[in-house]
């Protein structure tokens, strides 16, 4: 089961279990083309990435010429140089994920619980949540860059009320990068939480009240635990892409906010240092897989994986 299947009408949610067929040939026939494709364009490239991460430069060769080897030192060298960017990526992604959770939960709650039964209102609010998907995310990030620019009225207003010092700025700060990440992945957080709150039986909340729990207690003891599958999916759908993103840090940050994706990109394209770029990618992928597995285990929603 995937993260995402679990939040929708996953198996078990349908009217009755689908018939299970024993004939296996059919299954393999249906799977073959798609899985072959994933093998060719996902598994093989990941193996190529692993191989590239161990290459050494061709002796006396030009820049960008490498030969197969088992140079494990590529990893220690890459990490020794770029650990700050790696740590920063995870830190930014974590903060952005928490911020998105705090912002998205009330939105999802209002749509799923407060607007329950009002079909039209609910539909329109959902359309607002997904509206950002309809504009290019690069265009939206550029829009933030311009909204937060030094000469913009947002900055002028914040300086006027002393929220910012007179020479303070919003662009080219880590605040802008994290705000951009939070913004870009907000719908990915909102929709799964909405989906699990939507399925919440209001009678359970009423039962909490009947047992003399006050509003906050009912929320912490009933509503929140029941919406945990949505929270888990939402945090994963935000954290994973955010940790590898570099569009926000390029457009909204400066050279002290560099994230690991940016390093991989520039190692590949600016200096043709393929082994370092590949090693950093491998480290990022492995770190995320470990984090995701640990997180899903801990949160007790193992059916997600």
């Amino acid at each position, binding site marked *: 089961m995937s993260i995402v299947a679990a939040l929708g009408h996953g198996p078990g949610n349908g009217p009755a279990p689908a018939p299970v067929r024993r004939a296996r040939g059919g299954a393999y026939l249906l799977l073959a083309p798609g899985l072959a494709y994933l093998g060719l364009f996902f598994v093989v490239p990941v193996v190529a990435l692993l191989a590239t991460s161990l290459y050494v430069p061709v002796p006396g060769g030009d820049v960008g010429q490498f030969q197969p080897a088992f140079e494990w030192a590529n990893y220690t060298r890459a990490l020794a140089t770029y650990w700050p960017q790696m740590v920063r990526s995870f830190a930014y992604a974590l903060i952005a994920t928490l911020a998105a959770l705090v912002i998205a939960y009330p939105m999802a709650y209002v749509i799923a619980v407060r607007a329950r039964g009002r079909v039209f209102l609910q539909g329109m609010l959902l359309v607002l949540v997904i509206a950002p998907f309809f*504009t290019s995310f690069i265009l939206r990030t550029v829009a933030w860059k311009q909204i937060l620019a030094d000469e913009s009225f947002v900055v002028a207003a914040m300086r006027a009320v002393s929220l910012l010092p007179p020479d303070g700025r919003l662009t080219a700060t880590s605040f802008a990068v994290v705000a951009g990440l939070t913004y870009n992945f907000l719908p990915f957080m909102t929709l799964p939480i909405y989906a699990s709150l939507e399925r919440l039986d209001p009678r359970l909340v009423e039962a909490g009240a009947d047992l003399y729990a006050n509003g906050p207690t009912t929320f912490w003891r009933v509503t929140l635990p029941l919406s945990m599958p949505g929270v888990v999916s939402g945090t994963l759908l935000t954290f994973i892409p955010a940790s590898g993103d570099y569009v926000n840090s390029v457009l909204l940050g400066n050279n002290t906010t560099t994230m690991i994706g940016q390093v991989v990109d520039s190692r590949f394209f600016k200096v043709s240092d393929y082994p370092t770029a590949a090693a950093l990618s491998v480290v990022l992928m492995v770190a995320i897989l470990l984090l995701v597995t640990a997180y899903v285990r801990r949160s007790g929603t193992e059916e997600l994986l």
Partner: protein
Amino acid sequence: MSAPTARVGVGPVGPGPASGPRVPTTRRQGRPWRLGDAVVPLFAALAFLYLLVPIAYTVAFSFNDAGRSNLVWRGFTLANWANPCGAPQVCEALGNSLKVGVIATVVSTALGTLIALALVRYRFRGRALANLLVFLPMSTPEVVLGAALLAQFLSLRVNPGFGTVVAAHVMFCISFVVVTVKARVASLDPRLEEAAADLYSSPWQAFWRVTFPLLVPGILAAALLAFSLSFDDFIITNFNSGSFTTFPKFVYVSATRGIPPQANVIGSAMFALALLLVVSVQLVSVARRRRR
């Protein structure tokens, strides 16, 4: 059908209230007014504002009489909308994105639908492995997918361009198609197919006459999702495109020296089209529910 709910695999049924038990209200009669009643919606309203500000900005600046760089408001004009291809390369990039998007959508929807059918309908050896293979691309950051594909293309000495971009887009779309269609297949009532069998239809006929028509909404949702993922992709494209330019890449590259207002026009037009599509689907489904 809403592409967007489907985007995270919430299910192909669209934004209407889905499977939740429908008890009309949570506010009980006579309960005293609480602070939370106002605070939560207020907070949500602010969040919606946050979500929509950059979109409003993008649309507004498509009407800017911009000159060379579209950074400062210089006055209202319709000239950009009258001539959306006015800036060099904008429409070429848009055309490339549409081409890639259509091919990637068709191929990934076909491959993904077959996988989804196999995963829900059959129990077979290697099923867990197949699930894992579908799940992994979704839980890998784009920069890693892009770097891996580029490493492969470099070692095969394939020149990056249109072909490599399409190959990459099909790859990352497949998993999302599988998840979306799988949800739909799992929600089908197996008794319908049994009924077809009772009426002497062959399994093949039962599939095409009964199952497939019921799957169409899910498949369409998956296709819409695949298209929007492909159309908006930047990072993977940037790694595997060489000198080939898509619309997001065009915007990113021109961001340093100022984005032409025509890019805002195209972004706003796509926004309007998608909004129109989703809102009309929404209205139709509300009207249908009322009629029942």
